C-alpha cells in the first residue's frame, strides 16, 4: 500500500472507531470519485462504482462491467472486485451479508435512488459529514501530491501559452495540453476554455473556433497527481493586450489578492468570497458577482476538482489548517469579456501557501 493511502486509511479507521461505525459504503463515478477513492484508492474510469470497506480493512468493490472490473482488479489486488450489470442490486445483496453492523453511506448527493438510506431495507446512516471532514483537511502526503499537481498545472500552462497562436482551433489547443499532461503522468485533467472578445460570457469545452489576434483566451487547467487535483486559472491575450483589457484585468488581480489577504485557518468560505466580491463592488461591478455571470469565487481541491467548500458569500464552512483551495474571482467583465485568474493554496495557521509560479497577471503571447 502506498504512503498516501496508508495515511488515509489510518485517519478513516480512527474516525470510524470514534463514531462507532463498522462499515462505510461510498459511491463514486468517472466524474466525482473523491469519496470512493478515499476509502479504496480506486478511481473509476467508466460508469459508477461502489466501495464497501469494513473497519478491519476488508474492501469490496462493485463496478459496472468487466472492462472496469479488469481495471479495478489490477489497481486493487487486495480487494474483492465484483462486475455487475445492476450495481444497485449487487450492493443491496452485499449489504445484506453484513448482518447488523453499523453502516454509513456517502455522499448523499450521489447515492442512487435504489441505495438512498430511505429506500434501503436495512438501516444505514448518512456518512457524508464523516468523510467530508477527512477529505477537506490534507495529510502531509496529500499536501505533497497537491504541491506536485500545482507544479504540473504551471508547466501545463506554459505549454498552453506556447501553443496558443492565431489560427489554432480550441480543440487543437486542448490536444497539445492533454498530450503534455499524458506525458507528464497525469491520469486526469479537467479543462475548459473560452476565446474571443467582449461577447464571451464564460468557459466551456473546446469547440472548433480558431484563435485570432486580440482574443482573450481564458482557461482553467486541473491536472491530477496520485488522484489529487490542483488548478490554475489564467487569461492570455493573443498579441499585445489593449489598455481596456489591462484596466479590466486589474479588478481580477485586486480581487484575488483580497481573497488571499483574508485566507487563513479559521476563516469561513464566506469571508474569502466577500473579500473578493467587495473589490468588484468598489469598482461598481457588483452585478458581475452574481450567479447570472459567475458560479463560485473559488472552491476546495483534493480528490475532486470542485470539492467543498465552495467559496461563496452564503457558505459558512470553516477553512481548517491544511485545507487546500483555489481563490478565483472569475467572471464576466462588461467591457472586456470573460476573464479568469486563480491560484491554488494550502491554508496555514497564519495565512496560506501557494505553490504556483505562473505570474498572476494578464498574460500575453507577445511576451
Amino acid at each position, binding site marked *: 500500500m502506498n504512503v498516501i493511502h496508508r495515511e488515509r486509511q489510518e485517519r478513516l479507521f480512527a474516525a470510524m472507531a470514534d463514531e462507532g461505525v463498522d462499515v462505510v459504503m461510498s459511491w463514486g*463515478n*468517472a*466524474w466525482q470519485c473523491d469519496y470512493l477513492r478515499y476509502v479504496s484508492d480506486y*478511481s473509476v*474510469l*467508466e*460508469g*459508477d462504482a461502489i466501495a464497501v470497506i469494513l473497519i478491519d480493512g476488508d474492501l469490496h468493490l462493485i463496478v*459496472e*462491467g*468487466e*472492462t472496469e472490473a*479488469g*481495471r479495478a482488479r*489490477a*489497481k486493487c489486488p487486495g480487494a474483492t472486485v465484483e*462486475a455487475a*450489470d*445492476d*450495481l*444497485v*442490486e449487487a450492493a443491496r445483496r452485499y449489504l445484506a451479508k453484513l448482518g447488523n453492523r453499523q453502516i454509513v453511506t456517502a455522499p*448523499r*448527493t450521489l*447515492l*442512487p*435512488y*435504489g*441505495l*438512498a438510506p*430511505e*429506500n434501503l431495507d436495512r438501516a444505514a446512516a448518512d456518512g457524508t459529514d464523516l468523510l467530508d471532514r477527512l477529505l477537506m483537511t490534507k495529510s502531509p502526503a496529500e499536501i505533497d501530491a497537491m504541491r506536485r499537481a500545482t507544479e504540473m498545472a504551471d508547466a501545463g500552462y506554459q505549454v498552453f501559452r506556447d501553443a496558443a497562436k492565431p489560427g489554432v482551433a*480550441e*480543440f*487543437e489547443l*486542448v*490536444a*497539445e495540453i*492533454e*498530450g*503534455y499532461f*499524458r*506525458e507528464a*503522468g497525469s*491520469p*486526469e*485533467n479537467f*479543462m*475548459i476554455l473560452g476565446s474571443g472578445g467582449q461577447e464571451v*460570457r*464564460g468557459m*466551456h*469545452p*473546446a*469547440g*472548433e473556433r480558431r484563435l485570432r489576434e486580440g482574443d482573450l483566451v481564458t482557461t482553467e487547467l486541473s491536472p491530477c497527481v496520485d488522484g489529487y487535483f490542483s488548478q490554475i486559472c489564467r487569461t492570455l491575450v493573443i498579441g499585445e493586450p489593449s489598455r481596456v483589457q489591462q484596466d479590466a484585468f486589474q479588478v481580477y488581480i485586486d480581487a484575488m489578492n483580497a481573497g488571499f489577504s483574508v485566507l487563513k485557518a479559521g476563516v469561513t468560505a464566506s469571508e474569502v468570497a466577500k473579500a473578493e466580491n467587495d473589490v468588484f463592488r468598489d469598482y461598481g461591478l457588483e452585478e458581475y458577482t452574481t*450567479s*447570472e455571470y459567475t*458560479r463560485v469565487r473559488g472552491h476546495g481541491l483534493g480528490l475532486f476538482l470542485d470539492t467543498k467548500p465552495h467559496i461563496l458569500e452564503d457558505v459558512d464552512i470553516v477553512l481548517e489548517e491544511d485545507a487546500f483551495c483555489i481563490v478565483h474571482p472569475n467572471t*464576466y467583465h462588461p467591457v472586456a469579456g470573460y476573464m479568469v485568474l486563480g491560484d491554488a493554496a494550502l491554508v496555514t495557521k497564519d495565512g496560506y501557501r501557494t505553490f504556483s509560479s505562473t505570474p498572476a497577471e494578464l498574460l500575453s503571447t507577445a511576451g
Partner: protein
Amino acid sequence: MRRGLLSWSETEVPPAVLEDRLARLRGHMANEGLDALLVYTNFPRPAAVSYLTHFVPYWSQGMLIVPPDGAPVLAVSLSKRVSNWIRETAHVSEIINTPNLGKELAANLKSGGHIRVGAVELNRLPGAVINGLEAEYPDIELIDSTALYQDFRATADETEIALSRRAAEIARTALALARPGGAPVQADILSAIERSARMAGCEEILIDVAEDLAADGRFRRLDGPTTFRDRYAVRLSVAYKGHWVRLARSFDQRWPEDRAKELEAHIASAAGSADTSGLPGFSTGPIGLEACIGTLPLQSIIKPAAGQVVSVNRTWHDEGGAWLASDPVLAGPDGKNARPL
C-alpha cells in the same frame, strides 16, 4: 474527465435524424402507456440524452423530459450562462436551469398532467433527484423503463454507423503509433496517441495498457509513467460526437514484421464472428461484448441485436502470455456475421 472537441455539425448529425429517433422512442412509450419519459445525463452517463439531442454535459447533471408530443425539455443543473453553449452544441428547444432538479421535474410533469412516467435506469438515478421529485409530486407513478429504452436503442441508424466508423478510424490511426519501431516502445508514445486522437477531433479518449502480457494479461488504466516490456497491449476507447468504440491491439517487439502482419490479418478477419476466433498457435480465451444500450457509452451485453454497433473484446494465450484485441463491429441482420467498422 478529459473532454476534447464538443461541437455539433448538422451535416454529420442532421436534426431530422434526432427527430426521427425521438419519434421512434415515442412509439415505444405509447406501447407502454407512458405519459412521459425521463432520461438522465451526467459526465459518465451521457449516452442516452446525447443519442436523442446531441447534448453531452461536461459538468453537473441533467434530465431530459420526453412528453408524448411537443418538444422535449432539458432540465440541467447548470447556470443560465451555459445555455447558449448548450444550444450551440445540441438540438434542444426548452432548457430549464435549476440547482434543484427534483423540484423542477415535479413542476414540469405536474403541469403537463403526466402521472405514469417512465425513467430509464430508475434505480441508478440520483436518490436526491428522484426522492425530491416524489416529495414534490406524490401522485406520480414512476416506472423503470430501462428495458423499453434498450429495445428502442438496439439497432443502429446510418448516422450512428457513420459516427462510430469515424471513431474507429481515429482510434486506428492513433493506435498505429503504439506499434514497435526501431527503438523499444516507451510511455511517451502514449502522449503521441492522445495528441493524434484529439487533433483528429475526438470527444474523448481513454487509454488502458497491459505493459507486460507475459506477466499479466489484464488491461489497467494508464495513471502514470510506465515501461513496456517485450509483449504489451494498448486499448483505446474513443468517442466521436457521442459515439464510442473500443480498439485494442497486442504487440511483441521481438517478432519479425511478417509474423505480426499475419496475426493482425487473422484478428481482423475474426473480429466479425465468434465462430472464427481462432488464432494460429494460440488457445482461445473469453470473449466480451459491449454496446451502447442505455446511459453508459458502452456496457456489457450478452448477445448482439440485429444491426447493433458492438465492441468485441478478445483474449488468446500462448506460451508467451496473453494476447488481447478489441474491435468495433456492426452486427448482421441475425445478430451474427458482423462486419468490422
